[in-house]
Every structure is written in structure tokens, then in C-alpha cells.
């Protein structure tokens, strides 16, 4: 186990170095003069020269890389061209919003997905099974951005049940602790803010949850079907255990392992969906941040965000893998 973790950590370092090289070159390969990107279109030659000096842009490219990496390791990801703020601060400011949205989505997706998958497997070839499978087919094929728009049209514009976008209705006060508004309102026992922030979260959360929900349902179904065929289930039925106990106490528990992996994998993929969801629901999170930065050619933001995010993603994946090995010792410790 120790050896496995060490090996994975070693690999992690290699991957992160690779990520940093790719991130660095990606933005450097972009057309245009990086000094102009940093200083803006109308900077004087003197300012440009100062910037080149400051950011070592006159040095060979690999030297520039090391300067950039050293700054990045110290937490300095540069400044946004648009807002002139530090990229790292802007990222940290937006992180809780995206975290709240993705966690909310993955919880909805897991609960509904597992339930639907179990029902589908237990009642295989029933109407419920076909219903779940057709629903899952629609789910994995869903253009999230379109679903989001349709949800807004129906629930916000036509029925007036939910707000069109944003996180909190203006006028509602909330003390910021974690930056996750639903959690903050619970911590401060602020009922109106809780209801309001949840109302804002429900549509984007549901839109973002669609694809993972469908994937989890499919995975649960096939995993359950496999488990239900196994000998120990037959033995338990033969022992006279109630069907309910066989399914919920024994089968589901065993079917859960591959499902946990799928949920872990989907968690990272949700970030891609968050770009779309946050854009549609005008939520000030990381997804909208990077989409806006790309459209505005805000290269320092793109670079800083990509590095930050890839690091987070790789570390989360590693943790998931380690937890996974820990839960199920049958997994071979092979990278």
C-alpha cells in the first residue's frame, strides 16, 4: 500500500511537470506578443520594454518557463488583463461557488442515479426498467446548455418558480463564511437566505446533474444485475432472507464499488459541464470565469486557471484512487 502511494505520488509529480509545460507552451504558442497581452494594446514601447524585463520575456523560452514556474509555485499566477487583479485571488474567490454547484449536482446525481439503477435492475425488463433506461439514454445524450435554457424558460420565465440566474436575490443579507451560500446560510441559521440560495441553485444543479445521473443509473443497473446473479445472493435467498434485505443489505453494498469509481470520475468531468451551466445561469463561478477569459483573450487568466485546475483535478483523482484501493483491497496496486 505504502509502495503504491509512493509510486503514484512520483507519477503525480511527473504529470504535474508535464501539465505545467503544456500550460505554459499553450499560451505562449498563442498568436501575438505576450508583452502586449500583459500590458494591453495601447502600451507605450517603454512600458512594453519594462514588462519584457520584468517577466524575463527577453530570455530564452526555457528560462522563461522556469521563472514562470517559480512564480506559480509561490502562488503567483499573474494578473488578469481585464481586471488587473491577481489571478489566484480571483480563482479562490470563485472556487466556493463552483464547488457548491458541483457538490450539489453530484449528490443529486448519485441519489437519483443509484435509486433508479437499483429499481431498474431489480425489476429487469419491466416498464420501470425501460423507463429508466430510456431516461438514461436521453441523459447521456443531453446538451446541457440546451437543457439549462429549457429549464429557465419553463420554470423561471413561464411558471415563475425560480430565479433566472445569479446566486442570491438582492436585498437578502448573508454573512460570508465558506462562500458556499447554502452552507453559509445553514451555519448562520439564516432561513430566508437558505431558501433563496437553494432556489437559485436548484435549476443549475439539476442541469449539471443530468449526465452523471444517467451514467450512474446505467452503471448501477449493470453492476446490480451482475451481483444479483452471484451465488451468495442465491444462498441468501435460500436461507430465507426477505427479498428486501437481500437487495438492500447485500446486493447494493456489493454493487456500490464500481459505482463509487464512476462518481469519482464524473466529479472531474462536471467541471466541463460547469463552464456551460454557469454561463447559462450567469453564476459567478470558475466555469464562467474561464469561459469569459477565453473570449476576452485574457491569457494570464487562462494560463493560471488551467494550471490551478489541472493540479486540483490530478490530486483529486489520486485521492479517489487511493480511497478506492483502501475500500476494496482486491484492487491491484498497479498504476
Amino acid at each position, binding site marked *: 500500500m505504502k509502495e503504491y502511494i509512493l509510486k503514484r505520488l512520483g507519477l503525480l509529480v*511527473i504529470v504535474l511537470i508535464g501539465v505545467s509545460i503544456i500550460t505554459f507552451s499553450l499560451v505562449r504558442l498563442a498568436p501575438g506578443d505576450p508583452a502586449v497581452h500583459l500590458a494591453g494594446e495601447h502600451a507605450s514601447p517603454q512600458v512594453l520594454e519594462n514588462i519584457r524585463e520584468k517577466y524575463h520575456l527577453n530570455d530564452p523560452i526555457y528560462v522563461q518557463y522556469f521563472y514562470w514556474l517559480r512564480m506559480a509555485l509561490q502562488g503567483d499566477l499573474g494578473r488578469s488583463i481585464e481586471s488587473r487583479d491577481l489571478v489566484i485571488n480571483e480563482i479562490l474567490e470563485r472556487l466556493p461557488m463552483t464547488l457548491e454547484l458541483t457538490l450539489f449536482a453530484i449528490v443529486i446525481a448519485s441519489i437519483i442515479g443509484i435509486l433508479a439503477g437499483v429499481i431498474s435492475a431489480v425489476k429487469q425488463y419491466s416498464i420501470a426498467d425501460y423507463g429508466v433506461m430510456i431516461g438514461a439514454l436521453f441523459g447521456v*445524450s*443531453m446538451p446541457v446548455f440546451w437543457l439549462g435554457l429549457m429549464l429557465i424558460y419553463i420554470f423561471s420565465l413561464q411558471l415563475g418558480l425560480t430565479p433566472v440566474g445569479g446566486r442570491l436575490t438582492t436585498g437578502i443579507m448573508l454573512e460570508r463564511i465558506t462562500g458556499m451560500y447554502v452552507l453559509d446560510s445553514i451555519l448562520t441559521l439564516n432561513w430566508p437566505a437558505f431558501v433563496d440560495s437553494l432556489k437559485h441553485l436548484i435549476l443549475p444543479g439539476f442541469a449539471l446533474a443530468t449526465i452523471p445521473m444517467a451514467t450512474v443509473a446505467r452503471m448501477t443497473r449493470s453492476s446490480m444485475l451482475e451481483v444479483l446473479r452471484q451465488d451468495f445472493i442465491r444462498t441468501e435467498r435460500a436461507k430465507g432472507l426477505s427479498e428486501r434485505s437481500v437487495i438492500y443489505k447485500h446486493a447494493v453494498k456489493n454493487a456500490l464499488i464500481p459505482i463509487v*469509481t464512476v462518481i469519482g470520475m464524473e466529479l472531474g468531468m462536471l*467541471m466541463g459541464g460547469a463552464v*456551460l451551466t454557469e454561463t447559462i445561469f450567469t453564476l459567478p463561478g470558475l466555469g464562467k470565469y474561464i469561459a469569459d477569459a477565453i*473570449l476576452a483573450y485574457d491569457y494570464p487568466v487562462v494560463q493560471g486557471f488551467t494550471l490551478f485546475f489541472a493540479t486540483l483535478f490530478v490530486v483529486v483523482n489520486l485521492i479517489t484512487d487511493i480511497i478506492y484501493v483502501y475500500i476494496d483491497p482486491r484492487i491491484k496496486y498497479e498504476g
Partner: protein
Amino acid sequence: MDNENPIEVKQRTRTEITLKQLRKNRTAMVGLGMLIVIFILCIGAPIFAPHAPDDVDLDRGLKPGFWSKDGIAGYPLGTDNLGRDILSRLLYGGRVTLSVGFVALAFALVAGTLLGLTAGYKGGIIDSALMRIADILFAYPALLLALVVAGTLGRGIDKAMLAIGIVYTPQMARIIRSAVLSIKEMEYIEAEHSLGASDWRIVFKHVLPNSLAPLIVYSTLMLATAILDAAALGFLGVGAQPPSPEWGLSLSIARKYLVTGAWWAATFPGIAILISVISLNMLGDGLRDALDPRLKGGTKI
């Protein structure tokens, strides 16, 4: 009769058996049928479309379609904000969205096959190096990477194709690699080696044909997500540019007019994307069951 003539049974090739199984799979056949219809409609857009996709007339802006009395004859799905016929734009737009998906997939298929074959067949340090690069690219969620690459390369469908292609290459390479690894150790490959067959001969005559099953299955399923990504890039504004009738882009423009109650301009491009992706997923799932039962029920990638 079957028992009397066993040779005839044996003569059936694997392709024939697979096709027979595929024909029995109703989901796959329905998916295939829907795909064929979509392709015919989009390729034949100049024949089927009632209007030119860029026929602008502000006087007929945002008119509803057949379901409303306010609709105008000849515009069954209504018009968009510039008075263009939505049905015609859907047909022409499909050409753009679907071809971005196809070209991206073709890129990933060629690059991924070459890389995967090399990695799997050569093994050793080449394999480790290539797989570590794949790991690095896997460090980004697909859409996010495509967005960043497309954003860096610049706007336009050619960049979107390349960006999505790059993103899918490592996935393809991994699939090929693992197929190669499972075939490489088989005895008949060893026999070929001892007979003095060259590496290329073995790869192209034996390894590649035997890797075809997972390749076809995953290509179909990947094409589905590639099309979703193509539309997403168009929606975010880094893919197709106006006045292209691309589905994602049409959606993002129509989005502004939802408040006015003109739901049709945003609804139909989304349905078009959904139906195309559903048909591909149906075909892909069916192919998986027919070609490679071992993959049944597994995770997508």
C-alpha cells in the same frame, strides 16, 4: 441439415456473424435508421430546405411556426431573430455541427491509432512516455481542454475540430493500446514472429484487424460526445462564428430572445443535437453488445 454440412457454418466470417447480431439488435437498428435520415436531410439540405439559411428579413423576425395562428406559411418551425427560416438553418447547421464532430473524431482515430499501436506494440520506454503524455492530457476535463485549446488557437470551426480531435486522441490511443496488449501475447502472433514476419506486417495484418471491435464501438460513442462538444464550443462562442447556422451557435443567439417568449428559436437546434447524439449512442450501445459482449455494461471510456 446444419450438422450434415458443418463446413458451410464455419465459412461464415466474423463480420457476417457480427452483422447478423447487429441486425437483431433493435436499438442499434433504430439508431442507425435515425442517423441515416439525419445524414440524408443534412447532406441534401439544398434540396430539402425551403429557404436559404441566410435569407434575412427583419419584418418576419421571431415568427412562430405551424402550432400558432401568427405563423407564416412556408416557415413550419418559425423564424429566428433575423427572420431566417429555422428549419432551413437546422438542415444547413447539421452539416457544420456534424462535420466538426466527424473531422475531430477522424483526427483522433488516426492519431490515436498510430500512437496506441506504437505504444502497445513497442512497449518499454516508448509506451511509458506516450502513456504519461496521455495521463497529462487526461488531467483536464475534455470540454475544458477543448475550450482552452480552441481559445488559444483562435475562433472558427477548423480550430474547434482540431481542439476536439486533440482531446479525444489520448482516449483513442488507450483503447487501441489495451486491445494491442491483449492480442500481442497470443500464440499465433508469436508464431508469425518466429516465421520472420515484419512488425508492420503483424501490426496491419493481425493486430489492427483484431482491435477493430473496440475501435468501432468507441468511435461511435465518442462521435456522440464529440458532437456534443462541437455544439458546446459553438454555444460558448469559440467554435463556429456568425452567420453560421451551426446548432450550438444558433442556440446561443436564440437564448437572448427566450424572454420575449420566442422559445422555438432555442428549442429546435437543441432537439436536433439531442436526436443526433441519441441515435449515435443507440447505435454505439448496440454495436458494443454485438461486437464485444465483454464490454457490455462497462463504463463508457
